[in-house]
């Protein structure tokens, strides 16, 4: 179990977080840059001392400002994977991995390091210098080095951001395997919600120094409690004025024109969020058949981007929005920039958050 509580001022940022990760669990801390994600890791590792705070790892207390306890970083059994991996440039891959191994003969240090490198398929590159390795290979060396420390806690700072998009998917799979295998609680920091959802059992969304919502990735996506979380999890966010309508539904007059209905309750200024894959697209010429879909906005197609077997449409309606449809549907509709379409979705897929 890892528990981190910290309250401190860092320049313009007021960091105030409290989080807990259980054994075998990976908590992803996701938020924009400057939100204080890395500072949380540094507090846990002992590289940053907060004004007030407490860090517990299992039965050990690493920091308790109230009791004057502050265990130095070298005595906290933390496996910290740095953003750019921080491999020692003057040491070879195996010497990097052997760095935390002490109090044993060189031969044994080498044997253990090679064993760890082997596990990451890096045995052949044991004598290579970090500068000659690719980003993915560096990540493996960094993971092997951290495991050599036999960490009680894993801290990972944007471990995938230094990688190019092609190696990122593979590296994420490897990382997920390591996280599953290692029993230690893991705290993982990223600015990418998709990455957080992929690697974290739970996700905490952090903004301006505070964890504003915590839950499983699907909970966050389905019931965002703020416009920020909705936006961050990839939803379309529109703004407008809400008032109670018929049948207990809420009707929202959107800024810039148009009106949508939601099953959520709200009154006054609200953020309306809907996921792109909930939005259906029809040609504007088609008569709107009566159906279960309540919300219709007419919009102009701004962009058509293929993402795998799907197509993401950028739309300009009263406000900009995005829709995601299958490639087949996009082809049938003959969508291209400039086309006029109607975007429709159900009132029950429409989330309202007061702003």
């Amino acid at each position, binding site marked *: 179990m890892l528990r981190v509580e910290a309250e401190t001022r860092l320049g313009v940022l007021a960091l105030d977080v409290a989080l807990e990760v259980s054994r075998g669990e990976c908590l992803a801390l996701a938020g924009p840059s400057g939100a204080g994600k890395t500072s949380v890791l540094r507090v846990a*590792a002992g590289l940053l001392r907060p004004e007030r705070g407490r860090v517990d790892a299992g039965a050990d207390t690493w920091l308790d400002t109230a009791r004057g306890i502050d265990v130095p970083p*070298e005595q906290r059994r933390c496996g910290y994977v740095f953003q*750019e991996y*921080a491999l*020692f*440039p*003057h040491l070879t891959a195996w010497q990097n991995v052997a760095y*935390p191994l002490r109090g044993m003969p060189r031969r044994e240090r080498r044997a253990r390091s090679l064993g760890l490198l082997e596990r990451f398929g890096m045995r052949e590159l044991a004598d290579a210098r970090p500068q000659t390795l690719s980003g993915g290979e560096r990540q493996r060396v960094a993971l092997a080095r951290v495991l050599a420390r036999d960490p009680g806690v894993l801290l990972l700072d944007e471990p995938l951001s230094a990688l190019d998009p092609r190696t990122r998917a593979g590296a994420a799979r490897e990382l997920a395997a390591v996280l599953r295998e290692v029993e230690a609680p893991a705290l993982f920091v990223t600015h990418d919600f998709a990455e957080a959802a992929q690697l974290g059992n739970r996700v905490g969304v952090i903004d301006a120094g505070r964890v504003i919502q915590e839950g499983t990735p699907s909970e966050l996506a389905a019931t965002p409690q703020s416009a920020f979380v909705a936006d961050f999890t990839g939803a379309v966010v529109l703004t407008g004025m809400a008032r109670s309508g018929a049948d207990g539904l809420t009707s929202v007059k959107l800024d810039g024109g148009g009106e949508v209905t939601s099953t959520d309750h709200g009154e006054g200024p609200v953020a309306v969020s809907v996921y792109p894959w909930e939005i259906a697209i029809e040609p504007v010429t088609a008569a709107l058949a009566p159906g279960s879909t309540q919300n219709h906005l007419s919009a102009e197609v701004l962009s058509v981007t293929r993402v795998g077997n799907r197509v993401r449409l950028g739309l300009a309606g009263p406000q900009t929005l995005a829709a995601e449809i299958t490639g087949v549907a996009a082809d049938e509709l003959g969508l291209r920039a400039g086309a006029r379409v109607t975007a429709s979705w159900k009132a029950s897929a429409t989330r309202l958050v007061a702003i």
Partner: protein
Amino acid sequence: MRAFPALLALALAVALTFLTVPIVAIFVDSSPAELIDSLGEPGALDALWLSLRATAMALALILIVGTPAAYLLATRSFRAKPVVVTLVELPLVLPPAVAGIALLAAVGPSGILGGAVAAAGIELSLQTAGVVVALTFVASPFYVRQAMAAFAAVDRTLLDASRTLGASEARGFVRVMVPAALPGLTAGTALALGRALGEFGATLMFAGSFQGITQTVPLAIYAKLGTDFETALALSAVLVAISAAILLSVKLVHGREALGGAPG
């Protein structure tokens, strides 16, 4: 050829001639055989041996004290730091004669700390130890400045990584920071070495010029100037060779740094 490029080329030709002719002259004024013969003079050999010993001792002191001091200045920030850095760098621009006087006033026989130095059983004036003090005083800023820049250029997360991997800061300093800053530290050592070998004014004023005891190569060159121009030339030739070797090695080290040190 256009006028301006021709003018540039002419300026370079003049500068190059002016800078190289005197150095070339040292080697052509006498034949190589004569130069080597002149080095056999007892005074010349004494001076070379003394310069070697005194410079080595000064360098050892500079490295042992200067490396941790430079590390501290590069990795910590405190309010008095700009003042401290300026004070450390001051001897760089101090005229050598002033350095000599300053050392006399501080640790000379009647200097403010002279009594304490004598009481500790250390004799500096007119002694080889005095030469070492003068060389250290004049040459150390060259090393400390360069070492500071070298440490400051090392990615601080390397030290953080070392600590989270279980190494104390002292161990991280020895195992990570010094090796990572090594090219810069080497360059600083070479600069300090060059400055110490050529030191003249401070040594002369503080330690005097006694053959075999305080007469380093530059002092011997000056002493031989009137009586034995041949030996003065031979000693100068040796210093030119050493200086060229230092410059070359610094350039090589920096070249390697540029090739191997770039993050990629």
